[in-house]
């Protein structure tokens, strides 16, 4: 926490100094006249700079959800201490957030990104936190390195998970996206982009550490590395990622730190979007002391400003590896959570830079668990039951 505020302050100081020097975007002189008649080869240093040094922006969402199951709370992420259902009939915490963003381009090679985000936290507050903070050095426009806090592209929409406006759903299919192992890394990454014929490729490798707050505990990941690759061909896109790390969880009440366990995560995804319609599917397998899998498939059709869509997502219950130490009852219960969700929704682009979405989810809990419902009273079993969640959200970007 302190580290985050420190980093934020640092960037604000750095960003604050040259603000006055930022060049206004003057359209009439935006394209410099080149005297040399020969065109220039793609340089490591692009000769054409036309944009201001600092760009400010932001995005946000205001969303409300209602669950028909009032014996537990429906949450989208493991960091959330309360949700729709038992704690509240109409709940704003699942899909409400706001963020401010600054991109600074100091030179063609050196740029920085700072993004601070306020959303529902593990302590029940909406306290702002630094989501992104990195300095980027571009060796060429297609090869660059970043140092700082970097979001991990585990899934196709992981990096922009908070930017509701950037995707069609109220929230990315929940049974897969809640399995997102780590959302960001404090460390370094390198990116190589290439173009071979019509095929574009983007390769990323990262190394870093991370802390992840959950209600009542903090998970720390170290020696974390990952490789991520995206191939684009026409309107088709393929994504694969592999991550590995050591994780330990500290209980905030008892102060006890659990043993370090090795985690590996493998995910693949594919999408096809020719414009009028789209299909997308992703899959992950996570391995720690047990193995768990999740997937979704979704599709939609665009009719002018309306995009109706369908999605199905599910996760499998965890199965422990035989060579792992005998799991505790709590660990078995955690690993055993499983559910599936069938969603029907509609996005409406009602105004420039705004959308309105409405979504109906039918959630089915596995026959041996209460799924990912939280705050279920002791002794209540909802195994195998179904309930619905209805959500509406307005997203905006500026």
């Amino acid at each position, binding site marked *: 926490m302190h580290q985050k505020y420190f980093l934020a302050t640092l960037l604000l100081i750095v960003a604050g100094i040259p603000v006055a020097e930022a060049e206004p975007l003057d359209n009439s002189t935006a394209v410099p006249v080149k005297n040399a008649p020969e065109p220039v080869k793609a340089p490591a240093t692009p000769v*054409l700079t036309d944009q201001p040094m600092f760009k400010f922006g932001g995005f946000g969402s205001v969303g409300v959800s209602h669950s028909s199951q009032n014996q537990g709370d429906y949450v989208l992420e493991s960091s959330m201490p309360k949700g729709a259902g038992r704690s509240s009939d109409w709940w704003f915490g699942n899909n409400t957030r706001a963020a401010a963003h600054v991109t600074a381009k100091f030179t063609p090679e050196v740029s920085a990104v700072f993004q601070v985000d306020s959303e529902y936290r593990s302590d029940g507050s909406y306290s702002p936190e630094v989501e992104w903070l990195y300095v980027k050095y571009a060796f060429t426009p297609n090869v660059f390195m970043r140092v700082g806090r970097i979001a991990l592209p585990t899934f196709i929409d992981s990096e922009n998970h908070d930017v509701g406006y950037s995707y069609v759903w109220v929230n990315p299919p929940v049974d897969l996206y809640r399995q997102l192992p780590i959302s960001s890394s404090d460390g370094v990454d390198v990116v190589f982009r290439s173009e071979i014929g019509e095929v574009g490729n983007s390769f990323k490798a990262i190394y870093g550490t991370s802390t992840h707050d959950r209600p009542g505990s903090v998970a720390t990941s170290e020696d974390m590395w990952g490789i991520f690759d995206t191939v684009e061909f026409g309107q088709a896109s393929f994504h694969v990622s592999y991550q590995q790390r050591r994780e330990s969880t500290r209980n905030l009440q008892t102060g006890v730190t659990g043993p370090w366990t090795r985690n590996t995560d493998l995910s693949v995804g594919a999408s096809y979007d020719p414009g009028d319609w789209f299909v997308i599917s992703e899959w992950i397998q996570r391995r720690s002391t047990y193995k768990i899998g999740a997937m979704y498939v979704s599709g939609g059709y665009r009719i002018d400003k309306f995009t109706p869509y369908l999605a199905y997502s599910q996760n499998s219950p965890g199965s422990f590896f035989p060579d792992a130490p005998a799991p505790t009852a709590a660990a078995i219960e955690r690993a055993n959570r499983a559910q599936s969700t069938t969603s029907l929704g509609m996005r409406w682009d009602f105004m420039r830079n705004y959308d309105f979405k409405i979504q109906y989810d039918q959630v089915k809990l596995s026959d041996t668990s209460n799924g990912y419902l939280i705050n279920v009273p002791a002794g209540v079993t909802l195994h195998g039951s179904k309930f619905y969640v209805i959500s509406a959200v307005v997203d905006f970007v500026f």
Partner: protein
Amino acid sequence: MSRHRLTLSLFLSLAMFAAGARAGVVVVVSSKSTVKSLTAEQTTKIFLGKVVTFPDGQAALPIDQPEGSAARDEFYTKVVRKNPSQLTAYWAKIIFTGDGRPPMLLVDNIAVRKAIAKNPNAIGYIDKTAVNRSVRVVLEP
């Protein structure tokens, strides 16, 4: 009767021809550029920031027209196959992950043509009627 029908169909086809000739966005580069033609796919990659060069390796500087302009809407619908909301959603993902910025903006067909004429690396889309000898059409969608 048949003469009326003939007159009517002639009139309609002329009207359609006139409308077709008037509207129509084309993709242009400077006449000083070595780029002779581009596919819709190559143009799309340049305007979405997926590549920073032309296929022959020259640096590419895409220039947009303002949101809501006829040329922009037609270009993105026909060539890039994204409507204005899809385009904003696309750039929201790119901007807020720090991966890039949308192309620079010039006010209209003439401003874009003038800027492109002077810069062998620039590429833009303008209405067909604004084309003159200073620029070369590389894609007619």
